[in-house]
């Protein structure tokens, strides 16, 4: 029987009553699989990760994380669930007052009783995995944007979490770093049977490593399937997104009642 790390059922959320960010989303994240969530900017992908990690509560619908309902979970249980998840933030979110070493060692020092030597070894291994061994004593502001994101990746996998959520892990990376990151995500998934939720726009890398893909829009999930199913989808919105066409069903422009030409006095 298929086990699921995350189950979302008819989840909606908005920061205010008039504007729904996440609209009636239902999805299943199977244990040990890499599930990609794709969609245009501003369709609520990052908000979805925030809902799954319990940082925000849905307006309606239910979210189950490791078989526990998040709607009425106690703070104590939420904290113990969070020890089992890792999240890579879109902009890294490294602690700027700590060295690279302290950033990567943060969860190890907070949640384990490992001795300093062992923590030192684990940090070195994690940094080596992202190609940044030797940067232990640098401060985050001494790193390039791409390096900072790789340090953030090393930090998020420090405890080998059961569920990893990556928010745009490939943005701003050079081709080599991108390849290293994609391979690392896949390696962790295989070796630890780790569940992965990958929020990304990078079609090539997603098609290479994902087991299943959900396509989101402002109106909810518009398509889902395996990589081959998505590649061969006849859905006009999916085809447009993959091809990167401006014209089509996928509305690239901000919905407004103003007329651009009229606004500029051209007509």
């Amino acid at each position, binding site marked *: 029987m298929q086990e699921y790390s995350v189950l979302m059922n008819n989840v909606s959320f908005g920061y205010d009553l008039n504007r729904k960010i996440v609209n009636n989303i239902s999805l299943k994240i199977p244990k040990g699989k890499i599930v990609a969530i794709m969609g245009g900017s501003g369709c609520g992908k990052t908000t979805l990760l925030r809902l799954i990690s319990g940082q925000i509560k849905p307006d309606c619908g239910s979210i189950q994380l490791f078989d526990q309902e998040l709607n009425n979970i106690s703070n104590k249980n939420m904290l113990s669930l*969070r020890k089992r998840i890792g999240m890579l*933030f879109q902009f890294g*979110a490294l*602690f700027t007052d700590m060295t690279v070493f302290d950033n990567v060692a943060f969860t190890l020092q*907070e*949640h384990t009783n490992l001795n300093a030597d062992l923590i030192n070894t684990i940090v070195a291994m994690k940094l080596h995995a992202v190609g940044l061994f030797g940067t232990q004593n640098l401060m985050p502001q001494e790193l390039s944007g791409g390096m900072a994101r790789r340090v953030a990746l090393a930090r998020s996998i420090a405890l080998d979490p059961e569920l990893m959520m990556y928010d745009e892990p490939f943005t701003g990376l050079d081709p080599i770093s991108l390849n290293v990151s994609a391979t690392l995500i896949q390696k962790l998934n295989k070796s630890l049977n780790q569940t992965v939720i990958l929020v990304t726009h990078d079609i090539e890398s997603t098609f290479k490593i994902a087991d299943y893909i959900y396509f989101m829009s402002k109106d909810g999930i518009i398509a889902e399937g395996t990589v081959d199913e998505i590649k061969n989808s006849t859905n006009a919105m999916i085809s447009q997104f993959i091809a990167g066409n401006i014209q089509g069903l996928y509305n690239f422009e901000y919905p407004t009642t103003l007329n651009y030409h009229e606004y500029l006095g051209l007509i």
Partner: protein
Amino acid sequence: MQKIYTIIARIGNPVTAFILHLSGILRLLLAALINLPYSFLRPQLIVKEIYYSGVKSILIIVVSGWFVGMVLGLQGYNTLQRFGSVSMLGSVVALTLLRELGPVLTAILYAARAGSGITAEIGLMKATEQLEAMSVMAVSPIKRVIVPKFIGGIIAVPLLAALFNTAGIWGGYFVGVVLFKLDHGAFWSQMQDSVSLHYDVINGIIKSSIFGITVTLIAVYQGFIAKPTAEGVSNATTRTVVSSALSVLALDFILTALMF
């Protein structure tokens, strides 16, 4: 009728905002108190905060204390001279500093120097998702960030007030004894006679501890509620200094009425 509603709303809005902020600060205080034991397991975090907020404020505190003491010396000398009691200068300088100026000015200087820094740091941590990252890593920002700053402030402010008072007394001594050639022995003996350890020194320490709690709470609260933008953080730091100064002055009046 509409005009009356507008007037009521104009009065009501700031009042409800004040009550909301006050309840927010009290809830933060409660959360900090509940999480106090955690910080004692991580004393290095408290030491770091004392260093950044306290040790790095020493220069401004000592220099300010010295000048305030010199001004007190000058004003005190001019006034006491009229009554032929210049020998009381040591008492005047010491009592003014220990009871009022030391705790009050230290707290205001601390708010400007360290409080604004605390607010900006927490506000920027919020803007760059560092607090959110901490929460996702199952580490409470209240425990890891707020409580150490809170304890650091409570420890640092009374110690800084003691330094302010010491520098101020030496400033007064410089004006009275070195510049105006008052008797060195009279300056110190009058001070020793009139200053009571319990009544003046301990009450001064209590005052500065309460001011330390107030200023640090305001600073961390403003950082916590800051809008995660450059303008939001800038406004929050301004609010920290203004609210701290007003709160310290108002509390000083209440405490003075109760203590002396």
